[in-house]
């Protein structure tokens, strides 16, 4: 366990207003994740695990409680501040890869650097190439996402998540749309990233993969078990 917590959720409550009245999705959840940890979040559908992930990425805001990630209290940030903070601090990996279809693989990886202006413009292309080489996609750099396989798209999405060299990577079912062999490769990549100092929090339904993570957080009925 690393000494400094990178994620600190304290007494998080999340309610949604519905036609049938308020629905509580997270009930007084507290969670601390240290720097360099590899955490798998598991739980049945509707248990609140994706909402939990959304809290720490700033994609959603809590009804109550505090969210502090990488030293920043997210409750106080505006949407624009949140976007820029997220771009620099977090790498988000989605289940369906979500690469922009009109940009090449290389350009998709450069995009976060453009948005957050984290590297000099002249250095972005080289960095993106390096990241693609790191995930084994150097030869696919100039293809559009539609021209490569699902596994390659997800590796490209991981390279994109690493673009601004964030300390924290968050995946929402990142292997959920991949076959088991490709999922293994992606998991190995995650493990390698953690070994090199990244913190990784990943929601998964895959029990086998979850079991291979050093730390597993179980969510059920809006609470951490």
């Amino acid at each position, binding site marked *: 366990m690393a000494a400094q917590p990178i994620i600190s959720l304290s007494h998080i409550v999340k309610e949604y207003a519905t036609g049938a009245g308020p629905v509580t999705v997270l009930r007084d959840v507290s969670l601390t994740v240290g720097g360099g940890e590899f955490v798998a979040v598991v739980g049945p559908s509707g248990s609140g695990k994706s909402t939990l992930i959304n809290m720490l990425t700033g994609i959603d805001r809590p009804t109550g409680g505090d969210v502090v990630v990488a030293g920043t209290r997210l409750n106080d940030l505006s*949407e624009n501040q949140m976007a820029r903070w997220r771009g620099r601090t977090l790498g988000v990996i*989605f289940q*369906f890869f*979500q690469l*922009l279809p*009109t940009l090449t693989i290389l350009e998709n990886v450069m995009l976060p650097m*453009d*948005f957050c202006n984290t590297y000099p413009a002249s250095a972005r292309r080289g960095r993106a190439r390096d990241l693609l080489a790191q995930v084994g996609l150097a030869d696919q750099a100039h293809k559009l996402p*539609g021209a490569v396989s699902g596994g390659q798209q997800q590796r490209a999405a991981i390279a994109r998540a690493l673009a601004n060299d964030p300390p924290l990577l968050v995946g929402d079912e990142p292997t959920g749309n991949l076959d088991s062999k490709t999922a293994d490769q992606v998991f190995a990549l995650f493990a390698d990233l953690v070994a090199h100092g990244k913190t990784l929090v990943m929601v998964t339904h895959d029990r086998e993969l979850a079991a291979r993570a050093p730390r597993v957080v179980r969510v059920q009925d809006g609470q951490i078990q």
Partner: protein
Amino acid sequence: MIHALRTLRIKTCRDLWGNRSRTLLVALSVAIGVLGVGMIIATWDILTHDLARRYAAIQPAHVEISVPQGVTLDDLAGLETLPGVAAVQGRAVFTGRGRLTEDTAWQTVEIIALPDGNAQTVNVVAPVAAYSKPSAHPSAAVGAVMPTSAQDASPNWPPARGQVIVERASLAELGAATGDTLYVDTAGGVVALPIVGLAHQQDDVVAAVKGNPVAFVSLDTMVRLQGHDRVNTIYLRAEGAAQRNDVAEAARDRLERAGYTVSRVTLRDPAAHPAQDVLDVLLLVMGILGALSLALSGFLVTNTISALVTQQIRQIGVMKALGADTWIVLRAYGLTVLAYGLLGTLIAAPLASRTGYRLAAFLAGQINLDLFPYRLSPTALAVMAGVGLGVPLVAAGKPLWQGARITVRQAIADYGLGGGSGDNVMSRVLAKVQGLPRVWALALRNAVRVPDRLALTLITLGLGGATFIAVLSTDSSFSRTVDNLMEGQYGMDALIAFGQEQRISRVAPLAEAHGEVAHAEAWYFSQASMKLASGQEVLVLAQAGPADTQFYHPNLQAGRWLDPADSNAIVVNRKWATQEGVQLGDTVTLDLGGDLPLTEGVVVGINQDLVQKQTGVFVSFEALDRLLKRTDRTITLEVAYTRHDAEAQTRITGEVVAMLEAGGAEVFSTQILGQLKRQVTSFYRILVVFLLVMSGLTALVGGIGLMGMMSINVLERSKEIGVMRAIGADARAIVTIFWGESVVVALLSFILAVLLSVPLAHLLTRAVGMAFIQTPLDFAYAIAGIGYWLALVLVIGTAASILPALNAAGLSVRESLSYE
């Protein structure tokens, strides 16, 4: 199945209500299309209907007879007994000069004396006060235009002895107001006549086109002005159109037996308004624009509905998984599409009716016509219903059919971001373009992401731009043509008419004594009647000038110009050659009026000249002198100056007039070249204004089409926006991407517009030329129009993206990512 459809109807209603912003967007897209078509149809319908009813209400004549020396009222009344004659109306029509104060310049005024203003039966002139009373229904107003009793009339109608009533469109030409005094100079000397009211005359073109204002007086006043009370223009209405020729012949015969010389008999079509020529062009253009607008509406609606169906594919898959067959899906979504169409039509119909009426009122004002009170146009409503309900269904046909036939597996598969895969030829080509900033690369490639949608938007906006540039090109072509024809043809700067004949050898040197007068020539002008070989008589302006004229340069279309040795040669205007089939070698008879003998001429040339509604004919000055038995005499002088701008023309003309009058030559009136040009172009300006309004509307439809496309793109790419926000894009970056995309589409449409504008401008220029001057215009492409449209299309592109882009930037990341 019935239960399934009932459930689907409930789903349709809830979908419409639950996605209110999308419902409104689609309905507005339909509404814009319906608005464009509906407005044009409403304008056309109301204008043609009201024009016909208003004109019919003045009881237009079938026959017009000119008797220069005038007919007594008793002899006029005798014509009523002729078989087939339904009504007879006489007028004394003469010209004088008029001005409002001693300081203002004289201008030619046409004065009309009516025997009894309250008992008109043909070509009724109406007092404005009574005329402007609104009628509850069009049919109620027909026949009520002219008051039948004195109580209905304006208090000052008919004008009493010593008063004048001005035709309402002439008031501005005179620069007068009711209550002013008009000083009229005719055969009886200068007489001061107070302007006591306005009248509305519909049997002639408006004053601006005619070239001089029109005023009405009583016969008593005419006795004072002219010294007699006879009428020189007789209007006859036949009991039916079939009797028109018989009535004309019988009336001519009766008058000639009574000892009168009939100079001209003109057969009229009571259904053809005097401005029918220009209206025919307007209606033709409206028809073209209506069809164009219909096509644009179709594209707009197709775009919107296609996108909508694409969005619904997942739900279609779910329904099919639950047992819905293709037919049920088609019925269900057909109902949705109809609901959008109905909503759009309900939004557009009242707006189109109102704006259509306003546009019709504007055009009617240009030709001195009053519309009947506002009402709906049934034709426009029917077309709008057809377009509003039919076009969305047709537009939705292909995507609905494809959607309904999709397999469940295909439908519910989630391919990720949506909004088009972006994997098409254009995207692949553009992906090779390196070096662009990512945000702009995204904007550029997103623009071509859904090629069908892009194509329809480009066509819509491109056609709007092409129409805009083509209209400006038509305008510049017309100006060039008029300049070429008039400045090339008329070398003079001003025309000076004397009160009585002057010696040329005296007045020409007097004028040329002015330091800024380059040259002066004597010219002869006279309204005349020309009888053609076919027997038809037409009104012409007979002109004669020196054989070695420096001023007039004929634009000969066939034959040759006049020769001093010609004794009976005549050059006719191309208009008569085209319309009446006059050919070289034909013999025509020219009646110069008064006691002058008829003169026969052989057509030796066909000339094009736009002045005086293209009625000019030319004879040699020498032949005219022989006919008039005179030498070294003229009533008019043309002068050319060393400076040709309007200010100089006006100033020098005033100075020359002062010099001539100081020399004893009393000047009756003057006209500068700019006034002649205005007279030629005034009708045409109506068309240009109309075309510019229409092209503006086409651009608006294109702009809204672009906004619709951008809004759909934002909806479809909500998830993508969420992803970009998740990887660090702030609101500014999102706005820039969508704004950039909109500007890219606008610029692509600009290229298309420029390409399309060339053939369209040629077509429009040719059509307008043939309609107005019976010859293609000298084509002048409006290069400046490209610049104007570029500026406009960038504004449209920016305006069209503002709301969708801000909407995109305002989406929360969670909402974006959860969007389906």
